[in-house]
């Protein structure tokens, strides 16, 4: 009996701790929003973070996008030719990338590549008193350190997602047109006709903007509140990747339901 009570207590504690952490993250988000103008006014702060988070993620994003596009082309062609509609490969690949794979895979890669680095950097700054030192110099660390990193994530995510999709379409072109030999003209014209700017491209951008907010917030939050030890920083880094990935996939479901509701019924 006491085991059952302990289990329920443990469950309650976990839920309460989770809620408290969610509340803390909410307050932290508001604190960032209060000073989000700082990296806009002092553009050099933002540029530095855009370079570290965005530009340095370019290679992994473009290469991954290309491979995803190439695989999509092979798999898509295999299925489409059964129905004799292999010319629609372009539109299949483009929609898959722009609506789903571009934003989602970019966010997952970004969380692993840039989010973890941001968490580790802020966590170590916290552990070595750099954030405390800044605060004691009457410089708000949320404005000076946190908000530029957060904003950089929000700005780079949609741009990287666009590049991912572009690289993917190019990869599909290489495999579908150059290798398999689908007609060049129908590949592109079907894509042009089948992809809607507002419904597909804008919605994809909105998705990656939301993912940018989620991954950016999780990364700076985990770093800022990481226990100031080696173990604390390393587990915060892991949590950034795990929590971001889950958050991205769950948000993707919610956003997809909301964006494409009523399309089929």
């Amino acid at each position, binding site marked *: 009996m006491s085991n059952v009570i302990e289990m329920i207590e443990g469950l309650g504690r976990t839920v309460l701790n989770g809620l408290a952490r969610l509340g803390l993250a909410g307050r932290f988000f508001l604190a960032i929003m209060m000073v989000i103008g700082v990296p806009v006014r002092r553009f050099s702060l933002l540029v530095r973070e855009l370079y570290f988070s965005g530009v340095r993620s370019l290679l992994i994003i473009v290469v991954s996008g290309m491979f995803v596009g190439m695989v999509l082309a092979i798999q898509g062609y295999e299925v489409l030719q059964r129905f004799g509609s292999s010319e629609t490969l372009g539109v299949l690949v483009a929609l898959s990338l722009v609506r789903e794979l571009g934003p989602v895979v970019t966010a997952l890669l970004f969380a692993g590549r840039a989010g973890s680095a941001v968490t580790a950097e802020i966590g*170590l*700054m916290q552990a*070595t*008193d*750099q954030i*405390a*030192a*800044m*605060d*004691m*110099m*009457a*410089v*708000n660390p949320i404005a*000076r350190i946190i908000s530029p990193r957060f904003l950089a994530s929000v700005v780079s995510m949609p741009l990287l997602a666009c590049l991912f999709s572009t690289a993917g379409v190019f990869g599909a072109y290489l495999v579908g047109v150059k290798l398999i030999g689908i007609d060049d003209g129908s590949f592109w014209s079907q894509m042009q006709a089948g992809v809607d700017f507002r419904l597909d491209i804008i919605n994809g951008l909105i998705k990656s903007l939301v993912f940018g907010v989620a991954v950016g917030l999780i990364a700076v939050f985990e770093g800022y509140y990481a226990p100031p030890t080696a173990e604390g920083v390393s587990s915060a880094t892991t949590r950034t990747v795990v929590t971001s990935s889950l958050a991205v996939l769950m948000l993707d479901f919610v956003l997809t339901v909301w964006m494409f509701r009523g399309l089929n019924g």
Partner: protein
Amino acid sequence: MPEVKTAPPHPASLIEIKDVHFAYDERPILRGLSLSVRKGEVLAVMGGSGSGKTTLLGLIGGRILPNRGDILVDGQNVPKLDRSALYALRTRFGMLFQFGALFTDLSVYDNVAFPYREQTNLPESVIRDLVLLKLQAVGLRGAAGLMPSQLSGGMARRVALARAVALDPMLMLYDEPFTGLDPISTGIVARLIRRLNDAFGLTSLVVTHDLDASLKIADRVIVLAEGKVYRDLTPSDVRTTSDAFVRQFADGLPDGPVPFHYPAPPLLDQLLGKAGTASVEGGTP
């Protein structure tokens, strides 16, 4: 290393701490601490680990709030200040953290320039001169182009000192400034603390457990124990006192009023399994 002591400090106090209580979670750290720091003096605050020395600096800097009590710095009650008033007060503080806390992504030069760039509108050419002067004062003008990772512990501490005095503060707070330094670096940092204090007319609060270094530079030594000021002594008193606690501290004796053993049930009971074994098995004691 003979040090020139200043004339008896001006009686007016810069910091007035009255009956401050503070607890981390349920664990009381400060229990009715009262203390005043006079203008112009170098005050060494000593005490064992966990005696609340570093907490005291956090309270004065307004980074943590007391459960009750007043902390007056230059007439302003720190716990009652709102954020902007606190930041305004902090621009007149300098703080040296335990390991310097230099910004690792900035060079030595940029670290010292940081307070000027953030808090003033001075043109870069003026900032350059000021930074070079501050670095000259700590003897590291030649290291301006290095990154913090290229500095030794003592050099990093000196750069952090140059950064801390950049805006000519009225109050300097030192958190364990000698930890991990070799004897030469300890001597250099100690001498700098005294020299900067006198040259710039500062007031300095040095939290430390390095007795030798602090006795050479302090005007007054305060020993914290059980969350209060246990003794208020001059450096020469510390050397001659017969107080058992201060002696244990001064002579580095392993056992005395501060026990060697963490509280535990009698050893025999525990070996025979009569006492609880939670603390042995890794549960929280």
